Structure formats: structure tokens, C-alpha cells
């Protein structure tokens, strides 16, 4: 419980330091950092904007922000499942792309009706991500190929191959993206008019919340969750404890891929309705920041993704209002990552400080004890006699 508390402290400090560093940069550029950060909140519908276009309000902005948040929750869970087993899934972006592409060309361009199409998108998305994740896990266990290298290679292969197919078969000549999918297949109810305002209602968000608590349960309360943790902490020890390390590695990568698939489906067939060729989105990398910040704990991830996505989503509005490059958002996310990466060190330092404090308290206690023993020494003579008596008794015993 105590380390958890400490971790929260480190996470909060990381975020504050990053925001501070970002503020310094903004100040150097001659802008007001507080305004800029307020703009971030405004862009996500968490603070009122001075004026809204027709059919827009703070709530519609918020709905769009939650739509944007949904894929990140899946992606960060995907990162966490792999990381719990000590595997680094940096291929989330690629897995998202594969699942999004497969779901788009099979269901997205079909004429299926919504009640069939939407569940089918989720199933195909999950299958696509699962396939790639399982492949990485298999390569790791069968051929001992570093999962970072193989997943990055697969990222680029997926990106180029899909770009090839989009360019040759599915291109929209105007937008230079893949053709827009049918509304029936889209996992976000796009621009739903309620009371004169147009909302984006993400169906995936409900699934995401369910997943957060499902994985919280799996991690904390099931044998599999325990095995994941054991393999992640010490593979050799896990093997001696009778855990099948190979099975756990493949399984965790597979589940990680499946979650990435969900992220892909809710991103490419939810928040967006088309795919930009030759682009690996940053969600897969931001998910690492979220996972690090949330300590790979599902509830922590929910909070962290909420925060990181404010920075990412709000940056567009901030850029237009404050005249700052929207890339500053990625810089701040990068800084959060940087500070979070040092968390073991900070935790260690805190523990050191703790133990030093405990030592001090112990010593203080000893000092008081010393005083009391010194007081005892006044009748030291009698105790000496006692010892002598004991010795002589022992000697007698030996003689016998």
C-alpha cells in the first residue's frame, strides 16, 4: 500500500515537472503558459470556450474528447498486459493499423446493417490485432527474437503493405486517404443531433470501461494475473515455481494484440472513418506514456489516459488560440515519459529516505534505551555476582 502511495506521488511530480518545463518553453516563446494550458481544457470540453459554432457546445466537445479517449484506454491496457509479463509491446500502432484496415475492407465497405456490422467490426478488429500480437509472442518464445525489434519491423511492414493496398484499391482521390466507411459499421454514433447539438457518441467507451475493471480483476484476483506478474518480475523464479513461462509470454502478447485490435477498431472505425496511408499514429507510443504514468494498473491507466489525451486533443485548439505549434503537446507527453522513466530511481531514493528516517527513529529509541540500561547499571554489581555464581555452577556440572 505504501509503495502504491509513493508511486502516485512520483507520478504527480512527473506530470507537474513536465508541465513546468512546458511552461518555461511557452514563456520563452513569449506566450502565457496558463492561458495555453487553459486552452487545452477548453479544447476538450472541460472548460467553456468564449464562443461556439452552430450545433457545438461544451458538451459536444466533451463527447468528441471521450471519443478520442476511448482508443487510448484500449491501447494503454494493451501495453500494460504485455509489460506485466516483462514484454515491451511497441507495435501497438501497427496492430491498430492492421485491425482497422481489415475491419474497414471487410465490414466498413460492405452494406451490412448496423446491428450486424458493429459487432462484426469489433470481432474482426480483435482478430486482426490478436494475429499480429500472437505472431510477435511466437517469434519471441520460439526463436528468441527481441519483441521490440520484431514488432517494429512488423509496424513498418504493415504500414507499407496497407499503404500499397489503399493506394491501389481503396483510395479516395480527394482526401488522399482510404475511402470513408459506411456509417452502419462505425463504432461512434457520429454527429447525433440531440436538442439542436451534434454529439459524437462512442459505443467503444462503455466497452473500454468494462475492460478496465475486467483487467483490474484479472491482474489482482486471478491465477493468470499472478502468473503474468511472476514472469514479469523474474522469469527463472517463475519457471521454478512451475509456471509455464512460454505459455504466459505468448498469451500475454496475444491478449495485448487483441486489446490493440480494439483500439484500432475504435480509432479507425470510430473516431475516424478512414485510414491515412503510410502513417503510424502516435496513439501506440503515447500509450507507453500512459502505461508508465499509470504504473500498468488498469485504474491508474484510466486516470493517466484521461490526462494525456487532454494534452493531445486540446493541443489543436491551443495551437489556434495561443499561436503555439501543436507539437508542444507531444513534447510535454515526451517529458512526462522521461520523468516517469526515472520512477524506479525516485522510488528508490524515497525508500532510502524512509529507511534513514526509520534508522534515526530506531537510534533515538536506542538512545533512550541506553539511558535506561545506564540506570540499570547502578545495581550492576549484583548482576555480576549472579554471573559468577552461574559460572561456578557450570563448572561443577562439567566436573560431574
Amino acid at each position, binding site marked *: 500500500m505504501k509503495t502504491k502511495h509513493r508511486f502516485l506521488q512520483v507520478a504527480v511530480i512527473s506530470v507537474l515537472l513536465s508541465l513546468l518545463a512546458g511552461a518555461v518553453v511557452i514563456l520563452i516563446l513569449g506566450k502565457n503558459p496558463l492561458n495555453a494550458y487553459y486552452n487545452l481544457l477548453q479544447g476538450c470540453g472541460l472548460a467553456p470556450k468564449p464562443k461556439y459554432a452552430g450545433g457545438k457546445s461544451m458538451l459536444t466537445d466533451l463527447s468528441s474528447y471521450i471519443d478520442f479517449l476511448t482508443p487510448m484506454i484500449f491501447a494503454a491496457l494493451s501495453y500494460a498486459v504485455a509489460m506485466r509479463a516483462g514484454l515491451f509491446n511497441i507495435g501497438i500502432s501497427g496492430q491498430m493499423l492492421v485491425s482497422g484496415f481489415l475491419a474497414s475492407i471487410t465490414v466498413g465497405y460492405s452494406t451490412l446493417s448496423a446491428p450486424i456490422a458493429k459487432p462484426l467490426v469489433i470481432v474482426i478488429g480483435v482478430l486482426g490485432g490478436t494475429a499480429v500480437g500472437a505472431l510477435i509472442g511466437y517469434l519471441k518464445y520460439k526463436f528468441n527474437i*527481441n519483441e521490440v525489434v520484431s514488432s517494429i519491423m512488423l509496424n513498418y511492414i504493415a504500414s507499407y503493405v496497407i499503404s500499397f493496398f489503399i493506394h491501389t484499391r481503396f483510395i479516395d482521390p480527394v482526401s488522399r486517404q482510404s475511402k470513408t466507411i459506411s456509417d452502419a459499421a462505425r463504432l461512434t454514433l457520429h454527429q447525433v443531433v440531440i436538442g439542436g447539438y451534434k454529439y459524437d457518441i462512442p459505443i467503444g467507451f462503455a466497452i473500454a470501461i468494462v475492460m478496465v475493471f475486467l483487467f483490474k480483476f484479472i491482474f489482482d484476483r486471478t491465477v493468470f494475473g499472478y502468473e503474468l506478474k511472476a514472469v514479469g518480475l523474474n522469469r527463472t523464479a517463475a519457471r521454478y515455481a512451475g509456471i509455464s513461462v512460454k505459455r504466459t509470454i505468448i498469451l500475454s502478447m496475444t491478449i495485448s494484440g487483441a486489446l490493440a485490435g480494439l483500439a484500432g477498431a475504435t480509432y479507425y472505425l470510430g473516431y475516424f472513418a478512414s485510414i491515412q496511408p503510410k502513417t503510424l499514429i502516435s496513439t501506440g507510443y503515447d500509450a507507453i506514456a500512459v502505461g508508465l504514468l499509470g504504473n500498468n494498473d488498469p485504474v491508474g491507466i484510466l486516470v493517466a489516459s484521461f490526462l494525456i489525451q487532454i494534452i493531445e486533443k486540446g493541443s489543436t485548439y491551443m495551437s489556434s488560440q495561443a499561436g503555439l505549434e501543436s507539437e508542444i503537446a507531444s513534447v510535454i507527453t515526451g517529458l512526462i515519459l522521461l520523468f516517469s522513466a526515472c520512477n524506479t530511481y525516485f522510488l528508490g531514493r524515497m525508500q532510502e529516505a524512509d529507511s534513514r528516517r526509520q534508522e534515526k527513529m530506531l537510534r533515538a529509541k536506542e538512545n533512550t534505551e541506553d539511558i535506561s540500561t545506564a540506570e540499570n547499571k547502578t545495581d550492576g554489581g549484583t548482576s555480576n555476582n549472579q554471573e559468577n555464581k552461574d559460572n561456578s555452577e557450570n563448572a561443577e556440572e562439567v566436573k560431574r
Partner: protein
Amino acid sequence: MSILNTIIIDGMSFTLPLFIMAIGGIYSERSGITNLALEGLQGMGAFVGALVATILMRSMGTDSAVPYYMAMLFAVIGGTVYAMLHALLCIRFRANQVISGVVMNILASALTAFLTKSINRNIFGAASDKFDLGVSARFTVPGISKIPILGAFFTRVYPFEVIIVVIAVIAWYFLYRTTFGMRLRACGDNPHAVDAAGGDVAKTRFIAVLVSGALSGLAGICFAYSISAKFSSDIYVGYGYLAIAGYIFGNWNLLPTLGACLIFGMSRSAGYQIVQMLGMPSAYSDLVMILPYVLTLVLLIFLSKNNHAPAALGEIYDKSKR
């Protein structure tokens, strides 16, 4: 010019920067520090180099060769300084080295994209997300270049290729023929032995990571001056990871790594030539682009069983542990 010659000429101009970056990676990993940061290091190096070149070109004109060589120098400096962050994280702050490497890459691409736009807007007064550099001049060695096939290695050579070859030889000498190199390699296999022999593990590893930063920075500016002819976020297309795959094949040794890089470079340029020769539409070049990545995976499958990473790779060195 025959197609074979073109393949060799283009292939070498890609192979050599990749190779010098892989050498940097070997230095870092042989000393025991996992270095996934190569991608970010080359990007940061290219950014600093391109920035210096752009400033110099504005005052000296585009004809002068000074900006070109200054760009090389500052790319090396930029890569080195940025590598210091990785070294600090891994050695001083005991961060997970894999995470640190990935963080370095993400931060580098975010920072350089932001700085490029900000500097262009606030200093050069133009809204642009790139620094235009143009393609480096080339030279052909008279005489030797007339030899069939072999001559292609001396035809239309970029000046940076010569620099890379010289540095590679020096790097080989230092790693395998000096006390420093021996100590560096020992740090990756048994840091406690180095410590017992009176060596400073932390210092050796620090230097090794800086070397990888310097060499990656050089590689980055070479890519910027040849393939992309500019600095922009296009620089992050995974060449750093290709270099990593290169030295994993090469079993963390220099000469086999050169072989791996040659395979990547030649397959890439051969693919391009085939697309052009058959007159296929440009979308097909996307398929060709995957060749090095697919080759990497396939070769890794066959080779990784015989591979032996440095024994202490990725472990945080703790003096008090046994």
C-alpha cells in the same frame, strides 16, 4: 550505366550510414547498455546538423562546402549531447534501459518537430516543418571507377561515405586493439571483473553511449543529405531500428554487421531498380520498401539461435551486488 552499377552506388550510400550507426550501437551494447535510442539519436543529430547548415547557408550561400562539413560536425555534437541523456537515465537514474531508449526516440521526434516549426516561424520567418538541405555533391575517382562492377564502389561517391569508412576503421581499431576497447567489451560481459581490475564501469559505459550518440548523429545527417535532401520528420522511418537488427545479425561484431548492412542496402536499392525497370506504378515502391524489414525478420529467425548478446546487457550495474 548498367543497372548493377546503380544498385551498388545507391546501395552503398544507404549501407554506410546504417553501418556507422550500427557501430555506435555495438559500442553501447558491448559495454552493457541496451540502446534502442539510435533512431532518436540519428534524428537529433540530423536536426542539429541541418539547423547549423541552414544558418550557415544563409550567410555563406549554397555553393560553399563549409555548411556541409559543419553540419557533419554539429550532427556529431548534437547526437553526443542527446546521448548524454540516455546515459544519465540508464547509468545514474537506473531507468529500465529499454524504456529509456524508447522514451528517447519519442522525445526526439516530438522535440525536433516542435523546434523545427518554431525556429522556422520565429527566426527564419517562414511557416515550414523542414530544413531544406539539398543533396550532397558527389565525386568519382578517376581510373579505378572504370573497372567493371568493382569500379561502382568508386563512382558517384558522397564525401560522407569516405568519412564513414575512415571512422569505421578507427572504431574497429579502438574496440578490438586497445585496452579501452577490451575494458569496454568486458563491461558488457562481466562488469564486476572490470571493477575488480580497477576499471570504472560507469565511466566506460558513459563514454560508450556517447560514442553511439556521435556516430548515430553522423548517420542521421548523412541520411538527411542523401535520401531525403532535407531535415523533417521523414527522418524517423526506422533506420535506427534497422541498424539494431543489423548488429543483432552481426552478433555484436563489426565485420559481420557490415555484411548485414550490405544486405539491407543492396536489397533496398535493387528493389527500387526493379520497380523502375518494370515500369510499375509508384505505389509498388511501397512493397519494395518492406524488403529490408522482411529480410530482417526472416534472417533473425534463422540466426537468432546462434546469437550471444553480451552477458550483462541491459543489467543495471550495482557495485554492491555479487
